[in-house]
Each structure stands twice: as C-alpha cells, then as structure tokens.
C-alpha cells in the first residue's frame, strides 16, 4: 500500500499510426492539384474539393455520433443553412467572406441551439426521428424561398471576395482554402475530443446516468457539441456554395444526412481518421461506380453490407487489422 501511495498516474502514450495515416491522406490531397495540372483534368480537383468539403461535415458529424453517441439524421440541414447564408448574401450584393462567414455561423449556431435543445430532450430512435424532422423542416423552408430559386435552387453568378481579394475566385484559391479548413477541422475536433469537454461528452455516451451523478449536466455538454458540429457543417456549406456556385434545397435533404452517416460508419466511428477516410472513400466509390453504370447504388449497397459485416470498426478497423496485432 505504501508503495502505491507514491505511484505515478500512468500517462497514455499517443499512438503514432493514426498520425501516419493522416499524413499520407493530407499529403495525397496536397498533391492532387499538382497531378491535375499535369494531366490537365480540372474534374480531379473539383472532385477532391467536393470530397474534402464532405469530409469536413463528416468529421463534425462524428463528434456527435461517434464521440457523443447522438445519431443525427438531420446534419445536412446545417450544410444547407451555411450554403444559403452565402448564396442569399451574394444575391443581395454582399460579397465579402468576412461578413458572410459570421452570418452563416450565427444562423447555424442559433438553429443548432434551438433545435438541439428540443432534440436532446430525447435519445435513441426518437432523437434520430426528431433530428430528421428538423432537417426536413429546413429542406422545405429553403424550397419555399421563391425569391431565391425555391426548389430549382440558386445560381451564384459571382463568387465571394476574401478580404477584398478575389482569392476565392480561382480554383486554386478554393482548393487551398478547403484543404486548410479540412486540416483545421480534423485537428480541432481531435483537440476538443481529448480535452475536458470531450472527456465529459465521451463519458456521457457510455453512461449518462453515471456522468450526471458525477455532477455534470449531460444536456449542456451534448447541446454544446451539437452547436459546434452544426457550425462546422455550416462553414462547409459556405465552402460548398463558393465552390459549386450553385445551391439548392437538396443540399439539406435527408438522403444527404444518410450519406453522411454512412461515411462516418464506413470510415470508423470515434476514431482519429475514420470520418475523413470514410468521406473520401465514399466519394471515390461513388465517382468510380457511377462512371461505370447509372445504377451504381446497386453495387454500392451490397458493398456497404460487406463492409458492415466484415470490417467492424470501418476502414480504420480494417487498417488496424492489416497492420496486425502489436
């Protein structure tokens, strides 16, 4: 006993493997514009930008789903809110990103706070259904905006400025910006997860009653996570509008939210690189299969079933197994 009194707390080591995987992914993404230049294929950079934007959203969803145990079926609504904040402001003649971004963040944050406060009164299947309902509410609300294209969507004839420059007017500018936001999101969500806040959130996923009996308001921490994830998704939405120069209510459709859930589960929930890998893989498969056949989902569906059956823990779990036991 006396020996143990002076026992040091064991400090967990940071595993290296996820950092190596992430380095490879980000290095590959950084090389894509160079390769595209050589092959002269703008479609490749465009594809990569789309994949990176979805990866940002998937990472934010993993904070809710993987770390917080909150399966949101309405997460794409926040993407749509961000995209429409950007689209509407540009249509109204406000081109400055330094104004657009705060408005998008505020709008998404407010919606997350209100809808989250209601959704988080429930859990499990009810939570899934009520987030779905809120998502559909946004979808139909955007579809009714007659002055902004209603169901047909809205074309942005001009892109946003960035601090008075036309940085976001060039493909390279958009690529670099999206890459930077993805890298920042990946790093930030990991920091949040490991910090005090994230520890409470992760604990509440395992055993909310215990966490409450320790003296934490589980609701408060979950709601905060909900707002953070919503805001990140909205930033991705702004980037989407900037990149695509076209937005429509379908950005917030429930099918999109479903795709996001698939990406997170496919990659591996609550892992350092799972959501990132999942989103990139999803887009890659979608692109490859849809170039082969129009009915690509006929192949994609069974593929997902196989992954669900044989790759527990998603792609990250698969990678771990390939590396073998240590």
């Amino acid at each position: 006993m006396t020996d143990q009194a002076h026992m040091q707390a064991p400090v967990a080591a940071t595993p290296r493997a996820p950092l190596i995987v992430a380095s490879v992914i980000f290095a590959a993404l950084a090389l894509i514009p160079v390769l595209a230049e050589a092959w002269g294929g703008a479609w490749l950079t465009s594809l990569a930008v789309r994949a990176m934007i979805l990866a940002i959203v998937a990472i934010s969803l993993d904070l809710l789903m993987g770390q917080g145990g909150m399966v949101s079926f309405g997460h794409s609504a926040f993407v749509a809110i961000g995209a429409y904040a950007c689209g509407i402001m540009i249509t109204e003649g406000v081109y400055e990103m330094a104004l657009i971004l705060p408005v998008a963040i505020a709008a998404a944050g407010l919606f997350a706070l209100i809808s989250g406060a209601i959704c988080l009164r429930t859990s499990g299947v009810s939570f899934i259904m009520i987030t779905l309902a809120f998502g559909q509410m946004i979808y139909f609300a955007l579809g009714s905006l007659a002055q902004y294209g209603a169901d047909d969507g809205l074309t942005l004839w001009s892109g946003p400025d960035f601090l008075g420059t036309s940085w976001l007017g060039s493909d390279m500018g958009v690529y670099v910006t999206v890459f930077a936001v993805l890298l920042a999101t990946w790093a930030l969500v990991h920091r949040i997860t490991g910090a005090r806040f994230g520890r409470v959130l992760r604990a509440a996923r395992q055993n909310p009653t215990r966490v409450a009996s320790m003296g934490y308001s589980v609701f408060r921490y979950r709601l905060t996570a909900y707002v953070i994830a919503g805001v990140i998704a909205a930033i991705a939405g702004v980037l989407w509008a900037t990149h695509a120069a076209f937005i429509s209510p379908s950005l917030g459709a429930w099918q999109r939210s479903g795709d996001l859930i698939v990406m997170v589960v496919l990659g591996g929930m609550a892992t350092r690189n799972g959501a990132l890998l999942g989103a990139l893989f999803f887009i890659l498969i979608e692109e490859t299969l849809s170039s082969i056949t129009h009915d690509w989902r006929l192949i994609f569906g069974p593929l997902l079933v196989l992954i669900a059956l044989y790759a527990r823990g998603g792609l990250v779990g698969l990678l771990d197994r390939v590396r073998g036991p240590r």
Partner: protein
Amino acid sequence: MTEAVLQLKGLQKAFGALVVTDKVDLDLHPGECHALIGPNGAGKSTLIHQVSGLLQPDAGRIAFEGRDVTGQKQHERAVAGLGRSFQITSILPDFTVLENVALAAQMRAGSSMRFFRRADREEALNAAAMTALDRIGLAPRAAAMAGALSYGEKRMLELAIAIAGKPRALLLDEPMAGMGRAESESLTDTLLELKATYPMLLIEHDMEAVFRLADRVSVLVAGAIVATGTPDEVRADPKARAAYLGEDHAEGAA
C-alpha cells in the same frame, strides 16, 4: 443533537398503485453511518434514487446541509456534495480506471467547458484520481480498462469515483453486492476508514458489514420505515426481526 447533514421528511413515491416510498422520515448526522436494511423490493434503491435525484418523489422534502434540494436535478445535487455508488455497477467501461476517477475529480477542478488542452495529461486531475484510487486500494489497476476489471474491482471503482468527486455525504447502494466473503470484508475495512471523512447512507444486505459499519440502522418494509435505532436495538426489535426472518416469525413475535 447536531444538525442533520441529510434529512428526508414525509417522502412519498408510487409507481401507479404500488407505493414504493411511504412517508419516509430519515436523517443522517455528521460522522455517522446510517444503514438502511430491508427485504428485496422494500424500496431501498428507489429511496436512494430519490435522494440522489435520479427519481423525483411525489411528495415530501429532501434537505441537504440545511438546504432544500428536492427540486434539484441529479447533477446539481452531486455538485452540492451528494456522492453515490450504484447497486448495479455503473462505470465508464471504455475509459481506463484512472480516467473514470479523473473525470469525477474534474468536476471539482474548475470549468469542464475547456476545449483544447488534453485532459488526460492534466497532472492535478490524475493525481487527485490516484489519491482516491489509493484510498480504495485500486491504484495498481489505474491503467487497466474499466470494462476489463473483475467484478469486485468494478465495485471498488464505483467507490473511488464517488469519493473523487469530493462529496460531503455518500449514498452507497449495496457496495458489497455480489462480492465474495474475503472481498466483502476488505471493502468493509475500507468503508470503516472512509466513515471518518464522509457521513454515509448505506444500503446493504450483508448483515455482518452493516453491524460493523452502522451507527444507526433503519428497517424499510414495503416502502415504510418500521424501526430505527442502534444496531443492537434493531437486532432486538420484533418488527425488524420479522422483516428478515420471515412473516411466520413476525406473527409469533407479535
């Protein structure tokens, strides 16, 4: 007598037609271990749940350190200083033992709305957790995953979590439940040590432990307290004996 740390007045709770807590008055004094005994289904856990805030009573009042906490939520009561353990082991299985306890310590160490610094590297929290683990005798298992602990170790972890939150009173719901004789005895020793620091409301079936630990014993039968007194008084009380020895004896004794 000194003012009670915890005081229940006319506590009432029913699930439909089933009365599970029937006008319970009960108090806990500083430095005291007050044991709550009674047959299965008497409503002991339900009572603890109402004190900790997991369940709301239908009527009655709960005062903690002179303040009415009846309307407070579970987490608010924990912040106020009511620590508890659960009858059915309630831990965080995917965390290490150390992190389970460090999270409990984190509640007393300033805001948890911190988003950047790694919590598992916060030395003050880890040190507080190690102190709690050491007091319970679980320090050597600090690095193990909580889900991989043996049953007895999980029960000890319950207790370490409860004391790491710096409670001002402990609600212990069958801390010895399901333990072997040797484990049970060593845990009783631990609780005897803890008693010096924390007033305890203790539910326990292990009578040997109850009589070693308790200063006062209350007997709960069908939601109502039928006897309260020192262990010796309760041992001699016919109603208390009836509760434990069976209804036949009750008739004979009455």
